Structure formats: structure tokens, C-alpha cells
């Protein structure tokens, strides 16, 4: 046997897997096409199998070759339209492809695998599905070539080669001189051959092999029968760089004139069976004992007699056979080049660093640090990119799963797959397969009803399952929806009560959403009867645990009779996760930011009013609802040490881009020095409480920690075996100072503390309040002089920095902040508004926002942050009217001025805005009177944008969401010139609105400008896919006006 080179075999396995990766779906597509054979597709499958066969023959993997050959024969018939791919045929092909894949996966033992049953079945299909003439041709063999160069092939093969216009050649390679010495690999040769035509047969001359003691043979002859369109020996010799003497052919028509076998002429179909019979012996034993083609004769005909159902009913091929994890990844050369460049830069950075250290030059240390920081981030990103794979690799197996399962259950299902090219980290792709398979199987088994039941319910008898993947908010969402029966929550409640999981009262009080969630409780399954598919009551809980282990969440939405949607949210990667470093006792811990909802600080004075005890459990009041509290020290069983945290900040994590603040800044030293030392746990603690509001999918609770540190991107490291099962922990990481910090697992902490699902109604109410608060706007409140309160809409803030006073430089009357090796222009309120000067402090906060086309960053100095709060959008625009102030409102009996950051920036740096503003002015004059349709769900932004558009002479129709805008368009009362839309809106979001507009011939000419708080690249990409013409930042009025003017003008020009 020729398998001696592990590398070649590994390469073969890798390549064959790639060849076979799509085969299932392609076969299913072939089945769907039925008699309308898609030649392109059949050819593709044929080529895949053919490549496998070619390489297998070369490596002496006879069983793989045999099976691939069988498959290839059937595919060849389909390709030649000599056979119709019926369900039964495709079923067999699928089984054969499965077997082929399994053999390739365990390639070492493949030669011991028994494939005779499948090979016979394939032959029988050929026998049953084709005309007798074809069958005869399949059975009769002829010899081509002379002497050692002769090959025995079936007539049919020759005929089909001829039909394709291929010429036959026998090529005599020497593996030593022609391949190895040329630096090629044997598989390269096979690849080359296949790229030129069809490798019909090949063999290695056995006499070339010596015993083990022999020195390496000087030549190994490898004989190939090739069918190719190259029509002269010279061309073939050129193609392979071989001497013409090594090539025989073209072996045209009657090859069989001189060889002793006296094979019949290929061109003349045999009239007398005699020569065929004489050439047949090698084949005859295999085809002869076939117990008459009868059982399969009907395979190709439509009404299936019992025999034909056999392939389908035979023991289901175990498809779950362990899919081996990929051991290698393909990376594009450009990515590698980029990595190499970055590695080079890293080396330069290191050299610079060493020089700086040697020279004790502290000034340039900062810039070297900044450079290293940047290179590292880029390197990290580039490396992550090599790990990203499309989710299609997982999705591709589902059409088969659905087909087989629905066939088995007598259901009719259609599977729609969207978003195959969404990319996820390799490790997640590998881990997500099983849970998703389970969900898809569930959808077929429990979700979709039997066709009769569907008809009775007035539905299409064919059920529809939609599998969709998309990016949202930095996570990958996967949803599996079916239009089936939905989940009967009443039955779930009943079952849960019967099983003693919940009390009858609990069942009654449970919200619908919560009741449906019961299905994820271990031991509950609603299937009426237990099938071997699902319904054993293991499943949803396992799915949930597995997905949560990946840092994801599962959510179920169902409507009885309408269907169920299961949404899975996954992080993009597991290897590096943004986390908040917290302190408890003497140790620091990392809490992944995915689980963090917000941070709340309860000052000493507020503790009594906001923390209550219900029985033994502490709860916290948060915006009118109760949140269960867990003390991290209690959960971890360690003593808490009180440490006054970084001054009062209330941060809404969703809005402040914490990930941007990853530079590992330690809390200021004087804070650390104030360590109390003694244990001051309990409600009487004199200081404030730091509460992290964490969310674990179905549970939200407050985690009390001793101190908050910075937010960092951490690299996850596994824990040793002694710590694997420890509750509350998810792994470990190494912090900037080299110490190990453990990573907390929010779900496990809740489980460990036996946290009950809290007062659901209130919980829900709070969610509702958060989600649906359209009329309110989140704003950051701060003071300049302690007596004067200001507010800034959160949506406009890029991030917040805490700086030391000495970091502020004054350059030419302009304040700048030196940081990260660059300088950030600062503006101060007392320079721009009638405001009192800020007090002298050792530290300030800086609110960073971006303006203008260049996304220039500007920092607004905010001496003291007060709160993040929902503020009303009903502003008093009269009392404090001046440039830079939107209006005022009353917060806690104090007047707060709401700032207009763009006007402030413009006032401070008029030169930055002169250009575009002038353009906007001129253009808007031209476009005055243009009709603008504006969709925006936030009343605050709606008012602002409407007012400045109206001020510029446009007539604006404002709508509260995309649906309203769409209906306004449909109503057709007005004609519009430009559509301006928000992206995130209820009912119909901006993408969908744009899509509808662009797909409707009546409206597709309308330019659409999308406005967002902060446009990420991903948003821009999605937007342009939907057809968005331009992206603008809300309240960046000059840019927005310029854009509207540009499009309005174009629209006006088109009209006239």
C-alpha cells in the first residue's frame, strides 16, 4: 500500500473534506431540480467525487476509490441525462457520500471498511435507472492502449468521453523524476491531471516496488488514463512538461485492433456479444451475482412500490458521527502579508522601547507606548480575522437534516437559510453545531405539524423553517423560526406543576414569557410521544447550557398556532473579551461586559432608601423595580474589604463605549491608599455601594463588588483541572501587571446563590420601560461650577475619559489634552457660554464626541459627573437661549441646560465648519421648499432635526417610525424629494424601510439618508446593502444639511 507519507494523506483528507463539504446541499438541489437537470451542478458534484477518486487511487485507498467510483458512475449517468435523479437515487447518493466522508475522516482504517453493500446498491441503481442499452455498455469492457500501457474500461465510459469530445491518452509518469525531482507533490500531479480532463484510471506499476531492504527505487511508474480535450500529443506533453515518448495517444476510435483482447471499436456499438464477453471477466463477478435488477428496477419510476422505499427506511445513517475538528485553516495571502507587516512593526516598536528605556527618555516613552498599543490592537484584529469563518459551514448541513427528518416523520418542510456568510470565530463555529442541530430538529419534530393538521388549520401543508444569521450590536444573532404549532404554555405549566418544579400558584402567576421559558428547564419536553428524534426531555436545557457556555443567550418567542422563534445571541469570539475588572476582598476579578447591563453606585445616604430586605434576600430599587442583589464576597465565600471607589460615576454601559478605554489605566494611587482594611459588610457600611447590574438571559440581578477598576480586553486562559468545576468562575486571565485574575460567570453565580427568578412582572415592566421609553432621552448630567447643571444626550458621546489636571496643555490660547501620543482639542463651557469657571481639581472628566466630515474628536471638560438619567424631551427653549444650548429642563429641582455639542464645537472652532456650512447654505437656498420625509422614533432627535431642517427652508414630514413613514409614502398625498431615516426604530427599522423604498418602482428614485448616533462600519455596510445613499450623524447639522441639500438638489434637477 502506498500510504506511507502522513503529510500527503493529511493533505488528501483536508482536500477531500473541502471537496465534499457542499456535496449534500448540491445533491439536495439536484433532487429538487428533478428531471430538469442542472448540468453545471451535477458537473460540480461529479468533479468533487472525481478528485477524491483520483487521489484515493493514487494513495492506494482502494475502498474510498471504489465507492467514489460507484458514485461517479451514477453521477455520470445523471450528467448525460441517462438517469433521472429521483428521491430514492439521491437518497442513495447521500448515503454513499456520507460513507465516503466517514471513510475519509478515519482514513487509516478506510481500507478495512466494507463498502460492498453501497457499491452494489449504486450498481443496482444504474441497472434500474437506465436503458438496457446503457446497462450493457456499463457491463462490457474494452481495453485501450498497448502492453503495459493498456487499461480496461467500460464501453459506456469510452462512449461518454467521446460524447464530450475528449481524447484518450495513456501517460506514463515516473514519480521520482517527473514529480519528486521537480519539487512537486504527488497530489499536485493528481490535481494537474484533473484540471486538464478526466482521470479515468490509474495504477502504479507494481514491479517497481522492492523489498524493504532495497535502496529507494530509482523510478516508480505511475500510469494514467486521461480523457482530455487537448487534441495532440504535443499539447499534452506541454501541459505536463513530459517527453512525448511518455505519452501514448490520442487513442482514437478503434483502439482494439492490435491488442490481443480484441476489444470492439468504441465508435461501433457492439452487435455481437462475444468480444464483450471475453473482455468482461474482471467485471463480471461483481455485476453477475446481482439478484436480478428487479428490486431496484422501479427506483426511477414515480409510484414507489415497497422495494423502492427500502433505501429510505433502512436504519438511518448516523449522521451525528463525530465531525472531526478542523486542524488547519486557510488564510488568504493578503492577511498573512498584513500579519507579517504588523509583526515587523511590532519588532520596530520593541526596539524603540528598548532604546527609550536605555536612554531613560521618559518623554518619548509615552509615544512608544502608544505605538505599541496601536500595533498590538491591529495585530490582534488581524489574527482574529484569520480565525473567522462563515457560519455557512454549520448551516450547510441543515437542509439535509430537515429533509431526512421530515421524510422520516412524514412532514413536509421547507428550509430557508439566510446570512450564510456571517462570520464567527472558529471555536464558536465548532461548538455551535450541536445546539443548532438540536434546535432545527426540534423545529421539524415539535414545531411543524403533520401536513393534514396544517391543512386543517388553514395553513400551507408545507411547513417553513427560517434559519437566519445576522450581526447586531457587536454580536451574532441566529434565529430559527418555524410557522408551526407554537408552544403550548398551558401544557408546560401543567407539566411543570406535575413534576413538582413549581407550585400551582407560581404557575398561575407566571408570565407567558416565563412559562415558555420553562421548556428550557431540565426534564421538560412537550412532545406528545417520545420519538427517537426528540421528546425525551433532554434537549432544550442542554442547548441552553451549551450556548451559555459560549457566552451566548437563548430566547424563545412563541405564538400558539402561529409558530415559534428561537433567538440565539453569540459573541463574535471567545478568545478575547472586553471585561470590567472589579475588586472583591484582596483580589481582582474580570466580569465579561456581555453580561453587564449597567453600573450603579448607591451613595451612603441612599442605601437605606434603595436597598431593602425581602425575607433574607437583599433587593435594590432600580427605576421603580426591584432587583435581587448578590454580594460577590458572599458568592465567593471570601471576606469583603471596603475600598472607596473611583468617585461617583453612574455609567450606562450600553452608551459609553467602554471598550475604547482599554488602555490599562490603574485607578489613581490615592484611591488605593484609602483601603479600609476591616470588614464593613452589611447595610450599615458607611460608604457607597457599587452594584453591577448583570443579565444572564432570563435573569437580571445586581452584583455588589468592593471596587471597580478599569475596563480591559482580556485574553481568556483555561483553568487547571482542579478548578474546572468551581462554581462562579469561567476561566482566568492575566492582567497588565502580570497577576492572574479569575473571570466571573454571571449565570453560575446566580445558580450558586440559588437566585430565584425575580418578581417577573416588575422585571418585565422595567424592561418595557427601558425598551419603549421613546419619549425620553438618556442624558449625562454634569456640573461645571458645582452650582450649575448641564446635560448632554448620551447618543452623541463617543466616550468619557478621566484625566489628570496636568495633562491639559494650553497651546496658543487653545486647551489640548495630551494623551495616547496625540492631542485632543478641549473646550470648556465657561469660555463658550455664560457659565461660571470650573473649579481647580486634580482630575477632570472629558466628554469626547466627534464632529464634522473628518470625525474630528473634541473633548468637553466636565469637572464633575453627576448621573446618567432619562430626561424628558420637552425642553424649555426660551429661558436659557444662547448658541450652544438646546434648551433647559428641571432635574431634581435644579435647572439643567441641555447642550448642543455641535454648536459648541462650531463656536470654539469656526474654521472647521466654514467650508461645509457655506456649501450647505448655498445649496439649501437652491433646494428650498424641497419635501423631506423624516422617520425617527426618538422624539428628542425628531424635534431637533425637524427644527433645523425647517429652519433651512425644507418642508418636513416627521414620522415616528419606519412603518408610519412607509404608510405616508404609500398614501401618496405628497411627493417627497429626500428621505431621512433613523436606523433603530420599532415596527420597521431604517434598513427595512430603505429596502422597501428601493425595491418599489414608484419610490426607488428617492434618495435615502440614514442618520445614526454613531455610525459603525458594520452599520454602513448593512445600510449600503439595503440601498442607503448616505450616512450622517444625528445632530451633526452641517453635514446633514449639506447632504440633504445635495440630494434635494439632485432630485429637483431630475424633476425638471
Amino acid at each position, binding site marked *: 500500500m502506498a500510504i506511507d507519507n502522513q503529510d500527503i494523506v493529511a493533505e488528501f483528507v483536508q482536500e477531500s473534506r473541502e471537496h465534499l463539504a457542499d456535496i449534500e446541499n448540491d445533491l439536495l438541489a439536484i433532487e429538487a431540480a428533478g428531471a430538469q437537470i442542472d448540468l453545471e451542478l451535477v458537473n460540480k458534484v461529479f468533479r468533487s467525487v472525481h478528485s477524491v477518486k483520483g487521489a484515493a487511487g493514487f494513495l492506494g485507498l482502494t475502498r474510498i476509490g471504489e465507492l467514489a467510483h460507484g458514485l461517479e458512475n451514477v453521477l455520470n449517468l445523471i450528467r448525460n441525462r441517462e438517469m433521472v435523479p429521483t428521491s430514492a437515487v439521491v437518497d442513495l447518493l447521500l448515503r454513499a457520500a456520507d460513507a465516503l466522508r466517514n471513510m475519509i475522516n478515519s482514513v487509516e482504517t478506510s481500507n478495512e471498511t466494507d463498502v460492498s453493500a453501497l457499491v452494489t446498491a449504486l450498481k443496482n441503481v444504474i441497472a434500474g435507472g437506465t436503458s438496457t442499452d446503457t446497462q450493457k455498455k456499463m457491463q462490457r469492457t474494452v481495453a485501450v492502449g498497448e502492453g503495459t500501457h493498456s487499461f480496461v474500461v467500460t464501453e459506456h465510459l469510452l462512449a461518454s468521453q467521446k460524447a464530450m469530445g475528449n481524447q484518450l491518452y495513456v501517460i506514463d509518469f515516473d514519480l521520482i523524476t517527473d514529480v519528486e525531482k521537480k519539487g512537486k507533490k504527488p497530489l499536485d500531479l493528481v490535481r494537474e491531471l484533473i484540471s486538464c480532463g478526466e482521470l479515468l484510471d490509474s495504477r502504479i506499476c507494481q514491479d517497481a516496488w522492492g523489498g524493504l531492504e532495497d535502496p529507494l527505487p530509482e523510478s516508480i511508474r505511475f500510469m494514467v488514463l486521461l480523457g482530455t480535450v487537448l487534441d495532440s500529443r504535443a499539447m499534452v506533453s506541454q501541459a505536463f512538461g513530459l517527453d512525448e515518448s511518455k505519452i501514448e495517444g490520442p487513442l482514437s476510435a478503434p483502439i482494439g485492433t492490435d491488442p490481443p483482447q480484441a476489444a470492439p471499436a468504441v465508435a461501433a456499438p457492439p452487435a455481437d456479444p462475444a468480444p464483450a464477453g471475453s473482455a468482461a471477466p474482471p467485471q463480471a463477478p461483481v455485476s453477475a451475482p446481482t439478484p436480478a435488477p428487479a428490486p431496484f428496477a422501479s427506483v426511477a419510476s414515480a409510484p414507489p412500490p415497497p422495494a423502492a422505499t427500502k433505501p429510505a427506511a433502512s436504519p438511518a445513517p448516523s449522521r451525528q458521527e463525530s465531525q472531526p475538528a478542523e486542524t488547519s485553516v486557510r488564510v488568504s495571502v493578503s492577511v498573512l502579508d498584513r500579519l507579517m507587516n504588523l509583526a515587523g512593526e511590532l519588532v520596530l516598536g520593541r526596539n524603540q522601547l528598548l532604546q527609550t528605556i536605555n536612554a531613560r527618555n521618559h518623554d518619548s516613552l509615552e509615544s512608544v507606548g502608544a505605538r505599541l498599543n496601536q500595533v498590538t490592537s491591529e495585530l490582534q484584529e488581524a489574527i482574529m480575522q484569520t480565525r473567522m469563518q462563515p457560519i455557512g459551514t454549520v448551516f450547510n448541513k441543515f437542509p439535509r437534516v430537515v429533509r431526512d427528518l421530515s421524510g422520516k416523520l412524514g412532514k413536509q418542510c421547507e428550509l430557508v437559510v439566510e446570512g450564510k456568510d456571517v462570520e464567527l470565530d472558529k471555536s464558536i463555529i465548532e461548538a455551535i453545531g450541536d445546539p443548532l442541530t438540536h434546535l432545527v430538529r426540534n423545529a421539524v419534530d415539535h414545531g411543524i405539524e403533520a401536513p393534514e393538521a396544517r391543512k386543517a388549520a388553514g395553513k400551507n401543508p408545507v411547513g417553513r423553517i427560517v434559519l437566519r444569521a445576522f450581526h447586531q450590536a457587536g454580536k451574532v444573532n441566529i434565529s430559527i423560526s418555524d410557522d408551526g404549532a407554537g408552544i403550548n404554555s398551558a401544557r408546560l405549566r401543567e407539566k411543570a406543576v406535575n413534576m413538582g418544579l413549581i407550585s400551582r400558584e407560581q404557575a398561575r402567576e407566571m408570565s407567558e414569557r416565563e412559562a415558555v421559558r420553562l421548556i428550557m428547564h431540565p426534564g421538560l419536553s412537550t412532545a406528545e410521544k417520545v420519538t427517537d428524534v426528540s421528546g425525551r426531555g433532554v434537549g432544550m436545557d442542554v442547548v441552553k447550557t451549551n450556548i451559555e457556555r459560549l457566552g451566548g443567550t437563548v430566547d424563545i418567542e412563541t405564538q400558539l398556532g402561529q409558530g415559534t422563534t428561537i433567538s440565539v445571541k453569540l459573541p463574535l469570539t471567545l478568545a478575547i473579551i472586553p471585561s470590567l475588572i472589579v475588586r472583591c476582598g484582596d483580589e481582582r476579578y474580570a466580569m465579561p461586559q456581555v453580561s453587564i447591563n449597567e453600573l450603579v453606585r448607591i451613595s451612603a445616604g441612599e442605601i437605606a432608601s434603595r436597598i431593602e430586605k425581602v425575607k433574607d434576600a437583599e433587593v435594590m430599587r432600580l427605576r421603580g423595580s426591584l432587583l435581587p442583589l448578590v454580594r460577590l464576597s458572599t458568592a465567593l465565600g471570601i471576606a469583603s474589604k471596603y475600598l472607596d471607589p473611583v468617585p461617583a460615576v453612574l455609567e450606562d454601559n450600553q452608551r459609553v463605549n467602554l471598550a475604547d478605554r482599554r488602555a490599562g489605566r490603574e485607578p489613581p494611587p490615592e484611591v488605593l491608599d484609602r483601603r479600609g482594611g476591616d470588614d464593613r459588610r452589611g447595610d450599615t457600611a458607611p460608604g457607597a455601594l457599587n452594584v453591577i447590574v448583570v443579565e444572564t438571559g432570563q435573569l437580571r440581578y445586581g452584583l455588589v463588588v468592593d471596587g471597580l477598576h478599569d475596563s480591559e480586553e482580556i485574553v481568556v486562559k483555561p*483553568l*487547571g483541572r482542579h478548578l474546572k468545576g468551581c462554581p462562579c468562575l469561567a476561566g482566568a486571565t*492575566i492582567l497588565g501587571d502580570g497577576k492572574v485574575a479569575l473571570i466571573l460567570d454571571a449565570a453560575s453565580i446566580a445558580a450558586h446563590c440559588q437566585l430565584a427568578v425575580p418578581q417577573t412582572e416588575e422585571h418585565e415592566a422595567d424592561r418595557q420601560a427601558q425598551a419603549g421609553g421613546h419619549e425620553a432621552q438618556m442624558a449625562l448630567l454634569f456640573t461645571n461650577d458645582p452650582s450649575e447643571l448641564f446635560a448632554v444626550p448620551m447618543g452623541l458621546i463617543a466616550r468619557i475619559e478621566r484625566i489628570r489636571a496636568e495633562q491639559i496643555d494650553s497651546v496658543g490660547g487653545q486647551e489640548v489634552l495630551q494623551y495616547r501620543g496625540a492631542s485632543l482639542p478641549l473646550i470648556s463651557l465657561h469660555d463658550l457660554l455664560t457659565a461660571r469657571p470650573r473649579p481647580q481639581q486634580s482630575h477632570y472628566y472629558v466628554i469626547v464626541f466627534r464632529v464634522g466630515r473628518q470625525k474630528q474628536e473634541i473633548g468637553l471638560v466636565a469637572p464633575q459627573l453627576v448621573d446618567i438619567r432619562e430626561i424628558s424631551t420637552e425642553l424649555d427653549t426660551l429661558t436659557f437661549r444662547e448658541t450652544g444650548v438646546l434648551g433647559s429642563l428641571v432635574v431634581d429641582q435644579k435647572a439643567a441646560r441641555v447642550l448642543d455639542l455641535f454648536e459648541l464645537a462650531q463656536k470654539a472652532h469656526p474654521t472647521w465648519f466654514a467650508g461645509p456650512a457655506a456649501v450647505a447654505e448655498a445649496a439649501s437656498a437652491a433646494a428650498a421648499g424641497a419635501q423631506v420625509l423624516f422617520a425617527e422614533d426618538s422624539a428628542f432627535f425628531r424635534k431637533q432635526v425637524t427644527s433645523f431642517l425647517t429652519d433651512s427652508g425644507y418642508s418636513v414630514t416627521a414620522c415616528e417610525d419606519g412603518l408610519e413613514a412607509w404608510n405616508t409614502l404609500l398614501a401618496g398625498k405628497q411627493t417627497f424629494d429626500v428621505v431621512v431615516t433613523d436606523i433603530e426604530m420599532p415596527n420597521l427599522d431604517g434598513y427595512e424601510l430603505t429596502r422597501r423604498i428601493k425595491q418599489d418602482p414608484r419610490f426607488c428614485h428617492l434618495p435615502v439618508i440614514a442618520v445614526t448616533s454613531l455610525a459603525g462600519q458594520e452599520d454602513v455596510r448593512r445600510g449600503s446593502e439595503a440601498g442607503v445613499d448616505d450616512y450622517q450623524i444625528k445632530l451633526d447639522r452641517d453635514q446633514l444639511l449639506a447632504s440633504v441639500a445635495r440630494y434635494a438638489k439632485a432630485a429637483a434637477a431630475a424633476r425638471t
Partner: protein
Amino acid sequence: MNQTMTTRAAGAVLSGDELEFATFYVGNILLGLDIQQIEEINRQLAMTAAPHAPHFVRGVVNLRGEVATVVDLRAILGMPPVEITDQSRNVVVNSRGERIGLLVDRIGDVVRAVTADIEPPPANVSGVDGRFFKGVCKLEKELLVILDVEEALAGSPPPQERSDN
């Protein structure tokens, strides 16, 4: 200060049945480990405590970018815990593909012994269960007890029931 010793540091040729043992003290017992089993010995004792860990786990350390568990041999052998001193060392062994640190009181010499001199361990050594030991070997002045790392890392039942909550 950093005492690091790599596995193949000892260049001397050993005869077939001769073994080299790195020795260290835990309480008053002189323990030995085949030098081939040891990856390094260091003074890296700034550990991060691991809550809910088995009682004999002292914490985790950063071992050149890898997070390694450190176990307290005293706790495993059922001896009362002591504070970490200047003499304490972290003996890093490779156990089933994982690096694990053994916290010991003090490091001894490298000792050569002939296999024939190694006797099976008695039922207990200085009051410690003999199952943790592979054998004993009489040296000039004292008794070298050869540690069975895998048995030791399998852990012993905690001396008393711990309460997790």
C-alpha cells in the same frame, strides 16, 4: 533570586538503573521527585486565591502566560498549613499535560539513587498516608520519600467538611 532549574540541566551520564531525584522538604519529611518530572522550580509565590477550589489548592499563578494551579503539599499530606517564607518554593511539575505548582517548604539537593536501593513505602511515613509515596530510599543521614505526584494531585478528602456558602 529566581532559582530556575530545567529538566535536562544535569548533564552527567547516568547508568541504567540510577535515578536523579530533586528533593524538598514538606514539614519534616524529605520528599523526592524524579528530576525528569520537574519542569522548573521557582519563587513565584504571588498567587491569586481561587474561591470554591478544593482545600489543597493554594491559588493560581501566571507561569509565562499560562495560568497554573498551585497546590499546597502540606494540605494534601494532611499537615497544618504554614505561612509562606523566604524558603518556600514552587515546584512545577507536568501532570497529564498540565503544569501544576507544588508548594513546598524548602528545597534540598539533587540526589542520585540506584533503583535497587528503593524500597516500597511503609503504610505511613511520619503519620502521613503511604498511598502518596512510591517508595523510600535510605540516604546517609535521612530517609528520602519518593512522591507519587499523580496520587497526590488526585487530592485527598478534605480534613473537615467545608461549607461553600
